[in-house]
C-alpha cells in the first residue's frame, strides 16, 4: 500500500501548465526527495499534497484518504514545514505551539509540546518571543509545529534555505530522526547533496514532469550530479 499516492495530477496557473500528468507513489516510512530546478513545479506539487491547492485534474490520496472528500482527516495526518515559518512573531514559542495544539485538538497538549520542544532543543527558549529568535531557531520551532500533532506524513519545502553550516547539520539530524521514527517524509529541494544524504528515494521533477525516479542506495554523488545536470540541461 502507498502512503502518498499521486495519480495523473495536472495543474495550470492561467496559461502556464505547471504540472503535467504527474504520477508518484511513496511507500509508508520512506524518505523521498523531490529535486528539480526553480520553476519545475515542485512547490506546486507539495502544495497540492498539503491540501492548499487543488489540481485541475487527477487524484491524490494519503493513507487511502482522498484529499477532496476527507480533507480534515488528511490534514490531521500531515505536517508541513514550508518556506515561511507559519509562526506568530509576537507570541512565545510555547504560545505558538499551544495555538496549533488547540487547532489540531491535541488532548495531552502540555506533554506533546514539551516533547517536541525537547526534540528540537528549544525547551530553554520556550517563553521567549519568536521575533527575537535567530533564523535557525525559528526553523526548528517551525519543525516542532509541524510534528506537534504526531503526523504520519511530513512535507518539507526546501528546509535548508538560508541556514548556516551549524544549523544545517542540526536540521539534518532532526530530519533523520523524524524519518527513523517510522514517518513518511517528502522533502523538496534543489540541493543534490542533502537529497542524497538523507533520502531513501529520489525523484527529479523538470518542467512539470517526473523525469527520473530511483533509490539512492547505489547512487554515488558524482554519478547522480552528472545525470541530474544532463537531464535539466536538455
Amino acid at each position, binding site marked *: 500500500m502507498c502512503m502518498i499516492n499521486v495519480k495523473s495530477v495536472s495543474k495550470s496557473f492561467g496559461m502556464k501548465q505547471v504540472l503535467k500528468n504527474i504520477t508518484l507513489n511513496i511507500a509508508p516510512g520512506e524518505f523521498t526527495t523531490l529535486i528539480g530546478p526553480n520553476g519545475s513545479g515542485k512547490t506546486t506539487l507539495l*502544495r497540492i499534497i*498539503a*491540501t*492548499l*491547492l*487543488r489540481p485541475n485534474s487527477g487524484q491524490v490520496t494519503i493513507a487511502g484518504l482522498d484529499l477532496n472528500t476527507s480533507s*480534515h*482527516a488528511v*490534514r*490531521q*495526518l*500531515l505536517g*508541513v514545514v*514550508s*518556506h*515561511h*515559518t*507559519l*509562526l*506568530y*512573531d*509576537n*507570541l512565545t514559542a510555547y*504560545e505558538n505551539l499551544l*495555538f*496549533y495544539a*488547540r*487547532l*489540531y*485538538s*491535541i*488532548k495531552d497538549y502540555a506533554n506533546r509540546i514539551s516533547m517536541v520542544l525537547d526534540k528540537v532543543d528549544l525547551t530553554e527558549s520556550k517563553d521567549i*518571543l519568536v521575533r527575537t529568535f535567530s533564523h535557525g531557531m525559528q526553523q526548528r520551532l517551525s519543525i516542532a*509545529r509541524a510534528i506537534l*500533532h*504526531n503526523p*504520519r506524513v511530513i512535507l518539507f519545502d526546501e528546509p535548508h534555505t538560508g541556514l548556516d553550516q551549524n544549523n544545517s547539520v542540526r536540521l539534518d539530524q532532526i530530519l533523520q530522526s523524524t524519518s527513523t521514527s517510522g514517518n513518511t517524509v517528502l522533502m523538496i529541494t534543489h540541493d543534490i547533496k542533502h537529497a542524497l544524504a538523507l533520502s531513501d528515494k529520489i525523484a527529479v521533477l523538470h518542467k512539470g514532469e517526473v523525469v527520473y525516479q530511483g533509490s539512492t542506495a547505489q547512487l554515488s554523488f558524482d554519478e547522480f550530479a552528472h545525470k541530474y545536470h544532463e537531464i535539466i540541461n536538455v
Partner: protein
Amino acid sequence: MYNNNQYTKTSQYWRAVRTIIWKDLSIEMRKKTLVSALLIFSVMVTLVFTFALDLDKSTKDNIAVGVLWVTFVFSSTLGLNQTFANEKSQNSLEGMLLSPIDYTAIFVGKFISTYIFVIIVEIIVVPMFYILYGIPLFSPLFLLIVLLGSFGYTLVGTLLASIATRTRAREIMLPILLLPVAMPIIIASVQCSNAILSGAHWGQFSNAFNLVIVYDIIFLGVAIMTFDYLIQE
C-alpha cells in the same frame, strides 16, 4: 487510528474559533499598536470634523451623530485592513489552512477578534463625544444600535478584507469594496441613532432598526456560505 481526538464536531469548531480569538488578543495585548493607533486616529478624525465644520451649538447637535458614525467607519476600516495583514508576515494564515479545522471558523474567529477591537475603540470614543458634543449618548437603545451597526460593518469588512489582501493595492482596495456594500447599514444606523437621541418613539425608527438587524443576519449568512471560496488558493 492516529486521530487522537474524541471531541464532537461542534466543540472542535468553537475551540478553533476561541483559539483564533485568543491568539489575536494575546498578540494585541503584547503589541498594543492596533487599538492605540485606532484610538489616536479616531480622536484626530473627530478634531478634524470639529474644526473643518466650525461647529456652533445648533449644528453641533444636528451633526454629532453623523460625525460619530463617520469616525467609527474610518477607524474600523483602518483596523480591518490590519486583520488579515497580520497573518501575512509569516504566512500564518496558511498554518490555519493546513490544520484540520472548518475554514469558516477562521472567518468567525477573525471577525470576533476584530469586533472586540472595534468595541474597545467605541467604548472610549462614545464618552469622548459626550464630552465634546454634550449630547446624551448614554441611552441603552443608542448603545445597542452602535453595537448592531458596527457588527454588520465589521462582519462585511472582515469578509471583504480577506478579498482585499489578495489584490495588488490592498490598502486602498478595502474601502473601495466595503463602503458601497456597507452603505445601507451606515445610513440605517445614523437614522436610527438620530431618532433615538432626539427622543423619537419606537414607531418612528422601527424600520431603520429592523433594517440594521436584517442586514446583520443576511450578511452573516452570505459570509458563512461564501468564505470557503475566498480563502482557498
